[in-house]
C-alpha cells in the first residue's frame, strides 16, 4: 500500500466514524425524554382546572388564600419581590398563543389560576446545578430548599414563570405563620410542590389545599389510573394546556368547556 492510498483510507474511516456517531446521537432518545416517559411508581399526579367553575363566586381567590396560608407564602406588596405559588392571570396572558381579538367575552374574562405545571420534561430540572429541584417518580417536580443556592437558573428556564425568588427575608412578612410547613429564607427559589407533603406511602392523605378550597372547580388525581376523576374529566371535556408547543408536557390542564356564568 502506498502512502497516498493509506492516507485516503485513514480519512475515509474517520469520516464514516464521525457521521455514524452523529447519526446515532440524533436518533437515540435523549436522557430527558427517556426519563419523562418512564414512570416507576405507575402514578402521574395531574390537575384539571375548570375555568367556568373557578369564576363562580370568585372561587379562585379562596384557592390562592388557602395555598398561600398553608405554605407560609409571604404577602410582599412590591411586585418586584413578590412570591407566588398560585396566582390569577388574565386569559390573554395565560394562553398567549391561543388568544385572538375576536374571542367571546365570556372566555377572555375568565380568571385563570396559574401554578407550577409539574412538566413531564421540566426545563428547570435540567438547569439546576445542585439538584435542588428534581422530578419525582410520580411526576411531581419537587424542590429541596436546603440545597437551593439561589442561582436562579430555574427561573430563567421555566417558560411559565412559576418560580419566585426570595429577594427579601420572607419570614416577617408571612401572615399567620404556621409550623405545619417550613418557611423559606432569603436567597432561595420557591414554587408549588403539588402539596407533596400530604403524600404518605404514595397516596395523598388529603387533596392539595387549592383543590380543597375550589368547591369542585379543580380536580386532582392520578392520571395513569383510568378510574380517577381527573382522567374521566380530561377524556370527556375539552381542555388546553399552557405553551404545549414547547413540549415540556405540562400536567396542569384547563377546561374551558361547561356551563356559562
Amino acid at each position, binding site marked *: 500500500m502506498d502512502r497516498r492510498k493509506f492516507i485516503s483510507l485513514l480519512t475515509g474511516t474517520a469520516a464514516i466514524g464521525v457521521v455514524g456517531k452523529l447519526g446515532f446521537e440524533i436518533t437515540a432518545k435523549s436522557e430527558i425524554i427517556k426519563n419523562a416517559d418512564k414512570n416507576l411508581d405507575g402514578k402521574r399526579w395531574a390537575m384539571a382546572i375548570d375555568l367556568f367553575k373557578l369564576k363562580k363566586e370568585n372561587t379562585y381567590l379562596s384557592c390562592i388564600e388557602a395555598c398561600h396560608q398553608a405554605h*407560609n407564602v409571604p404577602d*410582599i406588596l412590591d411586585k418586584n419581590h413578590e412570591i407566588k405559588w398560585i396566582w390569577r392571570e388574565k386569559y390573554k396572558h395565560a394562553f398567549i398563543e391561543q388568544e385572538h381579538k375576536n374571542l367571546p367575552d365570556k372566555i377572555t374574562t375568565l380568571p385563570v389560576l396559574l401554578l407550577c405545571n409539574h412538566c413531564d420534561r421540566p426545563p428547570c430540572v435540567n438547569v439546576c446545578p445542585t439538584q435542588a429541584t428534581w422530578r419525582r417518580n410520580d411526576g411531581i417536580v419537587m424542590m*429541596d430548599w*436546603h440545597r437551593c443556592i439561589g442561582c436562579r437558573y430555574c427561573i430563567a428556564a421555566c417558560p411559565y414563570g412559576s418560580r419566585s425568588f426570595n429577594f427579601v427575608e420572607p419570614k*416577617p412578612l*408571612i401572615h399567620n*405563620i*404556621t*409550623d405545619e410547613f*417550613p418557611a423559606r429564607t432569603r436567597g432561595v427559589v420557591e414554587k408549588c410542590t403539588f402539596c407533596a407533603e400530604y403524600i404518605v406511602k404514595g397516596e395523598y392523605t388529603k387533596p392539595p389545599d387549592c383543590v380543597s378550597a375550589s368547591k369542585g372547580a379543580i380536580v386532582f388525581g392520578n392520571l395513569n389510573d383510568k378510574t380517577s376523576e381527573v382522567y374521566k374529566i380530561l377524556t370527556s371535556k375539552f381542555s388546553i394546556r399552557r405553551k404545549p408547543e414547547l413540549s415540556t408536557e405540562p400536567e396542569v390542564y384547563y377546561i374551558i368547556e361547561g356551563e356559562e356564568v
Partner: protein
Amino acid sequence: MNDRWKIIIGIIIFIIIFTIPLWLNIANKVDTDVPELVLPLGYTECIASTEYMRAYHMDILDEWRDKVVRQDVRMFNFKGEILEMSLSKTCMKCHDNKQNFCDRCHNYFGVHPYCWDCHTAPEEIKKKFATKENLKLLNDNTNNSDKEGR
C-alpha cells in the same frame, strides 16, 4: 547564654498573649458554667438516650431531612407510636421553648445552626408578627432596609 533573660521574658509575653481570652473572661466575669437546659414538662424520654441526643441530634435531623424531602419517607416508629420526622411538628411539640433549650447550648458552644432561618420556632407561632394590619408597614420597612443594604 547571654540571651537567657530575653528568651524567658519573650516566652512569658507569649504565654500572656496566648491565654488572653481566659484572663479577659475572668475579668469580665463571663459565665462559663455548662448551661442548664429547661426540659419539657410531662415527658420522661426522648426518641433516644440523652447522651445520644446530645451528641448526635444534628445527624438525626440531617437524616430526617434527606428522608422526608428526597426519599419521601415521612413517618418513623418510636415504640409502637407512629411519629412524623419533623423538627417543628415533632421535636418542638415537646421541646416547646427554643430559647431555653436549643439556644442555650448553641450559644454556649458558639454554633449557629441555620435551621431556624426557615423552620418556625414555637415562639414565632405565638408571635404571629405579620397581621393584615401591620403588613403594609412591614413591607415598607423591608423594602427600605433592602435598598440601604445595597
